[in-house]
C-alpha cells in the first residue's frame, strides 16, 4: 500500500465483495496524487449549477454524463459500474470503455449527485460532470450517421457484386436478355441509395469546393461517381453494352472506409483534450457585499460577469481570470505552467482561471470567465490543431486533384480518338478510363498509413497533437533535451545529509519531516519519504514563509528548515560547510542557537534516459542538452549520459537563438521540453515534444505529447514514423505505376469494364493492406529498447494500488 488511503480503498473493495477487480485488472490504477483539500462537491447539487449538464427525466429522475478519470483497464470499468450500480438511489450506471464516460441515472429524492461523485472518489477514481454534453451528442450522431452510410455502401457493394458476377462469367448468349435486364435493374435499385445517401458527403463537399473555387479531392470523386452512374443508368434503359454499378458501389465503400478511419482518429485526439475542461469549476462563491461582510451566494461559474468578486477557498480552483483583492496564499498554476511549486499570490496579483488555491481563502475580482479565459483559449488552440490535416495528406490531395484533371483530359482525348476510329465504342472507352483510374488509391495511400501510425503511437503513450508530426519525426536529425523533467524525473530525492556534530541523523530527518508535514513542496515530499520514523516527532505552530522555508515548534523549541540565511536568523553564525554535490539543492535545519543538519537533494535521471540517448545516437541523431539550470548540474547529467553538446544557464530566448542557428545549417530539430519556459524554443523547433507530466500549456503547443512521461515513447515514435514514411512512399509509387499502366490499356480499348472494376478495387485494397501492415509491430521492435530493463516485474502483489 502506498498510503492509508489506498489501504482504506482496498478494504472497501474487499468488503464490498468486489475483490475480483484485483484478479481481472490488467493495468495498475494511477498513483494517488498528493492530497489537496477537497473542494466541496455539494455545489453540484444546486439546481442552478445542475441546469448546465443534468437532464430531468421525471419528478425525481435525473440523468447526466460524467467524465471518469483514472480508467486504465476493463476492470476499472467493471469496478465503477458495479460500485455505482449498487448504491441505493442510482437507477443505472453505464460506462463507455472507449470514451471513458459514464451515463448515470439516479433518483434525486434518494441520492444526490455529490454523493455519487464522492462514491467514485472513494474507490480511487475521479469523476466530474461533462459540461460539453452537447458536443457529446453531436459526436454520437456523427458517428452513427457515418456508420450507417458505411453499412449501406458495404452491403450495397456486396449485393451488387452478386448481380454483376454472372454477367462477367456467363458465356456470350447464355443469359437471356430478360434476366440480364432484371439483374441490371436490381443493381440499379441497390446502387441508388449508395449514390444518393452514402456518397452524399462527397457531392456536398464537391459543391462546397466548387463554390469556393478550390477543387479538392471531393470534386473528382463526385465526378467519377456521377459520370459512371449516369452512363450506367443510360445503358440500363437503352440496352447499352456495359453497366458499372459494381465499380461505383465498391468505389464509394472504400472511400467511406478511409473517411471512417480518419474520423475515429480525430475523435480520439479530441478526447485527449477534455482534461482541460475540468480545471474550470462549474460553480463559484460570489460575494454579496464585499465591503460589509463575507456572505456568499453559490452561482454557476458561467453566470459571473467581469467585475464580480468571488471567494476562492483553499482547495478550490479559481473560476475565472482575475486579480486578487484580498488574501495571501499559494496557488498551484501547474495547469498552465507545469511548475508544481506553488506560486505566492497577494492582493494585486493576477490569477488565472483553473489555478488551485492551496492555503488560505482569496477574494478575486473576476475579469474573464468561461470561453474568454486563458485556459479555454488554450483548449481551443489545441482543438483546432487536432482538426488539421497532415501536410503530406494535403500534398497527396493536391496531387490527386491534378491527377484527376489529367485523367479527365485524357478520357476526353481517348473518346475523341475513338470517335474517329469506332464511334460506337467512344463513350465506353471514356468511361473505362474514368473508372479504371484510381484516385482513391492516391487519396487512401496517405491517410490510412497516418491513421495506423497515430493509433499505434497512442497505444505506446505518444499522442500526436498536430498532424504534421509524423512526417517531421521521420526526418529528425537533431534532438534537443531540456534537462529538468525530461531527462530527469522533475522530482527531488535526498542524496546526502550533513548532520552537525552531536546530532543524530534519524532525529534530524524526523524533525525535518515533521516540519514539512503539511507542505506540498517537492522538497517536502522528498524529506518525508526519507524519514524513517516520521511519526515520532510532532511539530506545531507551523508557519510557512514563502520563498524562504518553514518554521515550527518541536519540543517547545523553535525550529527552522529552509534556505541558509533563513535558518541563520535563529541558528546563529554561518557554519563552514563542505561543497555540495554537483547539481544538488541544499536546505538547512536549525533551532534557536544551533545548527542541526543540511540536506542535499537532487533530481535523479529518468531510468530510461541513458538507453534512450544511446539509441538516438546509434541511429545517427545528434543529441543536445540545453538547460536553464546551473552549469554544474547540467554538466553532471551530460557526462552521465555521454552527451557532448550541452549548454547550461540558457534563457528561453538564448535557446531560441541557438535553435535558429542550428536550423540555418539545415538541421531538422526535435525539441523535448516540459516547462512553459520552453514555449518559445518549442515553437521554433520543427517538431516539439512535451512530457505528459509537464505543463498543459506546453502540451497544447506541442506536436507530440509523451503521456505519463515515458521517454521511451520518443524512440519508438521515431521508428514508427520512419516506417510510416516508407509505407506512404511505397503506396504512392504503387498507385502511380498502376494508374499509368491501367490508363494506357484502357485508352487502347483493351480493358473491359469488369477488369476495370477489379483493377480499381485491387489497387485500393493493396494500398490499404500495405498501410495496415504497419499495425504489426515486427519491424518496429527493432527500434525498441527492452522495456523489461527499466520496468522490472513487480514482485509485491500484496500491495494493491487501486
Amino acid at each position, binding site marked *: 500500500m502506498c498510503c492509508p488511503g489506498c489501504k482504506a480503498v482496498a478494504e472497501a473493495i474487499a468488503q*464490498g*465483495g468486489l475483490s*475480483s477487480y484485483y484478479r*481481472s485488472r490488467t493495468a495498475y490504477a494511477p498513483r494517488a496524487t498528493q492530497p489537496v483539500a477537497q473542494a466541496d462537491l455539494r455545489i453540484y447539487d444546486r439546481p442552478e449549477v445542475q441546469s448546465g449538464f443534468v437532464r430531468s427525466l421525471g419528478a425525481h429522475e435525473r440523468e447526466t454524463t460524467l467524465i471518469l478519470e483514472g480508467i486504465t*483497464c*476493463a*476492470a476499472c*470499468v*467493471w469496478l465503477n459500474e*458495479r460500485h455505482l450500480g*449498487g448504491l441505493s438511489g442510482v437507477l443505472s450506471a453505464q*460506462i*463507455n*470503455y*472507449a*470514451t471513458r464516460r459514464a451515463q448515470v441515472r439516479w433518483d434525486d429524492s434518494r441520492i444526490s449527485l455529490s454523493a455519487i461523485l464522492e462514491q467514485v472518489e472513494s474507490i480511487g477514481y475521479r469523476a466530474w460532470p461533462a459540461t460539453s454534453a452537447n458536443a457529446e451528442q453531436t459526436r*454520437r450522431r456523427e*458517428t*452513427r450517421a457515418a*456508420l*450507417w452510410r458505411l*453499412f*449501406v455502401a458495404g*452491403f*450495397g457493394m456486396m*449485393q451488387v457484386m*452478386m*448481380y454483376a458476377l454472372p454477367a462477367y462469367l456467363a458465356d456470350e448468349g447464355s443469359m*437471356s436478355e*430478360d*434476366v440480364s435486364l*432484371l*439483374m441490371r435493374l*436490381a443493381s440499379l*435499385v*441497390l446502387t441508388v441509395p449508395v449514390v444518393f445517401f452514402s456518397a452524399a458527403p462527397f457531392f456536398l463537399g464537391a459543391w462546397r469546393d466548387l463554390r469556393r473555387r478550390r477543387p479538392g479531392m471531393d470534386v473528382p470523386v463526385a465526378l467519377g461517381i456521377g459520370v459512371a452512374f449516369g452512363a450506367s443508368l443510360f445503358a440500363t434503359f437503352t440496352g447499352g453494352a456495359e453497366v458499372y454499378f459494381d465499380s461505383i458501389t465498391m468505389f464509394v465503400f472504400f472511400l467511406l472506409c478511409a473517411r471512417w478511419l480518419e474520423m475515429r482518429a480525430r475523435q480520439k485526439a479530441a478526447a485527449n483534450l477534455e482534461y482541460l475542461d475540468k480545471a474550470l469549476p462549474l460553480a463559484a462563491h460570489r460575494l454579496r457585499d464585499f465591503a460589509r461582510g463575507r456572505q456568499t451566494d453559490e452561482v454557476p461559474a458561467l453566470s459571473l460577469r467581469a467585475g464580480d468578486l468571488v471567494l476562492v477557498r483553499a482547495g478550490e480552483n479559481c473560476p475565472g481570470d482575475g486579480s486578487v483583492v484580498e488574501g495571501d496564499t499559494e496557488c498551484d498554476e501547474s495547469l498552465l505552467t507545469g511548475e508544481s511549486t506553488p506560486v505566492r499570490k497577494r492582493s494585486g496579483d493576477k490569477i488565472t482561471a483553473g489555478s488551485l488555491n492551496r492555503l488560505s481563502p482569496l477574494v478575486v475580482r473576476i475579469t474573464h470567465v468561461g470561453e474568454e479565459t486563458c485556459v479555454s483559449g488554450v483548449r481551443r488552440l489545441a482543438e483546432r490543431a487536432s482538426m488539421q490535416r497532415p501536410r503530406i495528406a494535403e500534398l497527396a490531395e493536391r496531387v490527386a486533384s491534378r491527377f484527376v484533371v489529367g485523367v479527365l483530359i485524357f478520357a476526353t482525348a481517348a473518346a475523341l480518338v475513338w470517335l474517329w476510329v469506332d464511334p460506337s465504342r467512344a463513350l465506353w472507352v471514356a468511361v473505362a478510363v474514368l473508372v479504371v483510374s484510381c484516385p482513391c488509391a492516391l487519396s487512401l495511400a496517405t491517410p490510412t498509413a497516418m491513421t495506423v501510425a497515430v493509433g499505434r503511437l497512442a497505444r505506446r503513450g505518444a499522442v500526436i497533437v498536430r498532424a504534421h508530426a509524423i512526417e517531421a519525426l521521420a526526418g529528425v536529425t537533431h534532438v534537443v533535451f531540456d534537462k529538468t523533467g525530461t531527462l530527469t524525473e522533475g522530482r527531488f530525492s535526498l542524496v546526502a545529509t550533513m548532520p552537525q556534530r552531536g546530532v543524530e541523523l534519524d532525529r534530524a530527518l524526523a524533525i525535518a519531516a515533521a516540519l514539512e508535514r503539511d507542505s506540498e513542496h517537492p522538497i517536502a515530499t522528498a524529506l518525508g519519504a526519507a524519514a524513517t520514523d516520521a511519526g515520532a516527532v510532532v511539530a506545531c505552530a507551523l508557519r510557512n514563509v514563502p520563498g524562504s522555508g518553514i518554521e515550527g515548534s518541536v519540543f517547545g523549541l523553535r525550529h527552522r528548515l529552509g534556505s541558509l540565511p533563513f535558518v541563520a536568523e535563529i541558528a546563529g553564525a554561518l557554519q563552514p560547510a563542505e561543497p555540495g554535490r554537483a547539481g544538488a539543492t541544499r536546505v538547512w535545519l536549525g533551532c534557536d542557537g544551533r545548527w542541526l543538519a543540511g540536506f542535499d537533494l537532487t533530481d535523479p535521471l529518468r531510468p530510461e534516459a541513458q538507453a534512450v540517448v544511446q539509441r538516438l545516437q546509434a541511429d545517427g541523431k545528434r543529441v543536445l542538452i540545453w538547460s536553464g539550470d546551473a552549469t554544474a548540474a547540467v554538466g553532471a547529467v551530460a557526462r552521465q549520459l555521454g552527451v557532448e553538446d550541452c549548454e547550461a544557464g540558457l534563457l528561453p530566448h538564448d535557446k531560441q537563438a541557438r535553435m535558429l542557428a542550428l536550423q540555418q545549417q539545415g538541421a531538422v530539430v526535435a525539441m523535448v521540453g516540459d516547462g512553459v519556459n520552453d514555449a518559445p524554443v518549442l515553437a521554433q523547433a520543427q517538431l516539439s515534444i512535451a512530457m505528459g507530466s509537464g505543463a498543459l500549456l506546453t502540451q497544447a503547443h506541442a506536436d507530440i505529447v509523451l503521456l505519463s512521461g515515458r521517454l521511451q515513447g520518443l524512440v519508438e515514435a521515431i521508428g514508427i514514423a520512419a516506417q510510416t514514411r516508407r509505407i506512404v512512399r511505397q503506396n504512392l509509387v504503387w498507385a502511380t505505376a498502376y494508374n499509368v499502366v491501367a490508363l494506357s490499356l484502357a485508352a487502347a480499348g483493351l480493358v473491359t469494364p469488369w477488369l476495370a472494376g477489379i483493377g480499381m478495387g485491387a489497387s485500393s485494397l493493396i494500398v490499404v493492406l500495405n498501410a495496415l501492415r504497419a499495425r504489426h509491430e515486427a519491424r518496429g521492435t527493432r527500434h525498441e529498447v527492452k522495456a523489461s530493463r527499466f520496468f522490472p516485474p513487480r514482485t509485491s502483489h500484496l500491495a494493491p494500488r487501486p
Partner: protein
Amino acid sequence: MEILYLLIPLSVVLVFLIGWVFWWSLGSGQFDDLEGPAHRILQDDDGPQ
C-alpha cells in the same frame, strides 16, 4: 431459369430488410462502445456480492 424472376426481387427485398435491422441496432446504441463488451464478458459476476 424462371426462378430468377422471383429470386432476384426477393434478394432486393432481403437487402432492405437487413438494412432496416442494422439501422435499428445502430439506433439502439449497439455500436457506441465497440471495446467494452469484449472485456465485460470475461467478468465473473456470479460470486456472492
